[in-house]
């Protein structure tokens, strides 16, 4: 092991230089770092380590997407669609209802209507599986698991998009919004240590719909199959019964802005051409009648239509405060969430704790490094110095790799790096102890060093690999800080293997060649 091919030597030296080069940006001041980011191309050292939220300060939110009600709604919509289609085609049916993943209904005249019903059923969703039982006349339209998964995924992506718009509008810098698992969304907000406002913004579905009132039902007080009973926002005991059918919806809005009129803060809105046209028609046909403005299943207000509104503009008033109108306008502009989102996990770190953690992390790293260096020299003298030099490069490699990979450094991650510093010397200790032994047994210096490296190799690989296994498993199962720890440890193990095996060896060989000692005191 004393003979290293030339190309390996050059490669190692090159890697050492690169390692230091890529680690250097982390030492520079913030302005220099920003300058590097913009002026150097991506493959040159211009990146720094990504600081985790616990070191920057910020919030991490895990949102649960409440998919089930949305699926129910979709199935109900299919029922409505089927119902109106069949009425139009004059197909007799009964017992129509939604299932978990589709709809079923019974045909009154199977022979006559089979084909037409089949066409209608297929048109509901082209992924659906349609079965018609010829004897009982029961038609079942089902979506298989993959189709359902597609729908769920689509709901989640749409939610992510809307969340992103809302978060962007609120002005947070560089948020991270990602899907987690099948029905969860991770939102990371650097620099936001009180995410209450964002949580409020995310907590509202903001589904805006305009409905005509069901006047017959208002008299009797009971809602029928095509109407809904909804509470009044300002007086939740009072109920308003509206027709299920939506006149216009929030999707047709092109703009919403907070504004004021004589009575107080309002939200002024603008419909797109479809919405404007629809609103025009409906308002023309219903002058003198009231219509309800519904937001998230609450009736905000129910003004009477005074005249036909054809400009597509209007305003919503409902006893709002100024802040409420600003928030509502923001929500309407960003769009309605397809599903309700609930915060199921939250971890927020304030900025002072963040910078304190960075400071203590730095101290721990520096002192840890110093102690290890002192101990190595105390136990192994000159060879301890060699190990320390390799340790310096080891740390540089860790920083370089983490910067290149844009890995996230958390406080446990710093602990992981410090730990690797402590354990990194293990490889050197194994080698040196072996060399010592061989010398005591009477081998020559060169032979001892050679044997020492050779014998220690497999042990070093074994012990590092087992720790690496644990680190990798922690990486795949951990979240947040634990993941950061696993990343740092994994990188640290790999770099310390390389440093101990290649760098120390080269230094030792170089020294041996230069001084050619006849004895070695280790």
């Amino acid at each position: 092991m004393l003979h290293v091919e030339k190309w390996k030597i050059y490669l190692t030296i090159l890697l050492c230089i690169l390692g230091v080069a890529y680690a250097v940006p982390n030492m520079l001041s913030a302005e220099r770092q920003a300058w590097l980011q913009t002026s150097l191309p991506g493959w040159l050292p211009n990146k720094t380590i990504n600081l985790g939220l616990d070191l920057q300060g910020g919030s991490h939110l895990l949102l649960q997407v409440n998919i089930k009600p949305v699926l129910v709604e979709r199935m109900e919509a299919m029922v409505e669609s089927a119902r109106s289609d069949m009425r139009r085609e004059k197909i007799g049916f009964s017992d129509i209802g939604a299932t978990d993943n589709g709809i079923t209904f019974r045909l009154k005249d199977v022979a006559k209507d089979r084909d037409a019903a089949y066409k209608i059923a297929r048109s509901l969703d082209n992924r659906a599986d349609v079965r018609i039982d010829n004897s009982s006349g029961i038609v079942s339209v089902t979506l298989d698991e993959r189709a359902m998964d597609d729908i769920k995924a689509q709901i989640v992506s749409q939610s992510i998009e809307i969340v992103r718009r809302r978060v962007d509008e609120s002005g947070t810098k560089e948020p991270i919004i990602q899907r987690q698992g099948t029905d969860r969304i991770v939102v990371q907000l650097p620099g936001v240590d009180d995410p209450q406002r964002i949580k409020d913004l995310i907590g509202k579905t903001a589904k805006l719909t305009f409905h005509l009132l069901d006047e017959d039902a208002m008299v009797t007080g009971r809602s029928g199959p095509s109407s809904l009973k909804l509470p009044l926002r300002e007086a939740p005991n009072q109920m308003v019964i509206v027709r299920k059918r939506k006149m216009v919806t929030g999707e047709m809005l092109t703009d919403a802005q907070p504004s004021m009129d004589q009575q107080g803060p309002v939200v002024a809105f603008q419909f797109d051409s479809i919405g404007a046209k629809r609103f025009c028609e409906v308002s023309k046909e219903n002058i003198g009648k009231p219509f309800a403005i519904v937001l998230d299943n609450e009736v905000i207000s129910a003004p009477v239509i005074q005249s036909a509104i054809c400009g597509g503009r209007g305003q919503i008033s409902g006893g709002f405060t100024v802040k409420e109108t600003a928030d509502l306008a923001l929500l309407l502009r960003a769009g309605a969430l397809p599903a309700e989102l609930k915060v199921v996990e939250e971890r927020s770190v304030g900025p002072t704790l963040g910078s304190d953690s960075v400071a203590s992390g730095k101290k721990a790293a520096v002192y840890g490094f110093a102690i290890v260096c002192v101990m190595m020299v105390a136990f192994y003298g000159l060879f301890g110095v060699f190990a320390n030099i390799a340790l310096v490069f080891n740390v540089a490699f860790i920083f370089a790799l983490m910067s290149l990979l844009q890995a996230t450094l958390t406080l446990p991650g710093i602990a992981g790096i410090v730990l690797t510093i402590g354990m990194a010397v293990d490889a050197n200790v194994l080698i040196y102890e072996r060399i010592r032994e061989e010398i005591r047994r009477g081998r020559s210096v060169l032979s001892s060093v050679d044997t020492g490296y050779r014998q220690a190799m497999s042990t070093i690989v074994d012990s590092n690999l087992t720790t690496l296994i644990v680190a990798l498993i922690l990486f795949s199962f951990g979240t947040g800080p634990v993941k950061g720890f696993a990343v740092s440890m994994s990188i640290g193990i790999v770099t310390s293997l390389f440093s101990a095996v290649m760098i120390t060896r080269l230094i030792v060989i170089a020294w041996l060649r230069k001084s050619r000692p006849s004895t070695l005191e280790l």
Partner: protein
Amino acid sequence: MAFRIKLIKDDTNIDFMSVHKAGLATAGLLIVAAFVLLFTKGLSFGIDFTGGLLIEVKTPAVMQVEDVRGKLANLSAGAPVIQEFGDDTFMIKIPGREADEGLQKKMSAEVQAALGDDVEFRRVEYVGPQVGKELIGTGIKAFVYSMIGIMLYIWVRYEWQFGVAAVASLAHDVIATMLFFIVTGIEFDLSTVAAVLLVAGYSVNDTVIIFDRIREILRKYRKKPLTEIINIAVNETLLRTIITSTTTLAVMVVLAFFGGAVIQGFIYAMIAGVFIGTFSSIFISAPLLLYMGIRREAAAAAGEEAGDAVKA
């Protein structure tokens, strides 16, 4: 060259194996104690597993824990668990329950109101009941897979008897570390699970080094009795074990001082783990080999193949 510290003399010949029965007995006792205490005192679970709210506050002036307790005694969710960290930093823990709507918002507001406006909320962590249960599953899965991964690795590199001995000592390490948590009352959350796994990794590290040496000696001295071989192996690796443990411990003591509240439990667990791991490598996995019926030729041969594979 500078002076060098010689921690122990060069050719130690401590007869570890003579006390190996006592060692195994101690291990057995620890395991029994762990189970007994697990069901009586129990682990102090963190909110990662129970769900709930954790707030780290810093008071503008030095306060006593009792004062803080008094002020927070009347929260609607019940009196919280309060831990002190330094003179002016406190951890307020409100364990979660099933119906948790708005717990975080309500409790944060109540705590703020009770303690006054100039108290600084350094850190807030909220884990909903659903996620809490899932994290338990995650912790267990991570644990089981790590154990399996390590076992497989040892199985591949050594004879199966070594694998069994290593796993037995691993199990001991994990149980002993849990015992440490139960006795000290340190909070058991996800980062302590990471610590337990690391202790396992570190201990296997230690064990593998002794095994390697045993295998090498087996090859050289096919006639010597196993007890003697194990003794020699442990003695020869003793210095390395002491040095590495010392550097690791030194580094962790530094971390304990400067690391801050977040990783405290983790570091203490690791420190205990270094001792536990070293103890188990010397007094459990090595002696267990005596009872495993190692086929010497096979073990030595496995060593040669594996060794050659690495050198290539």
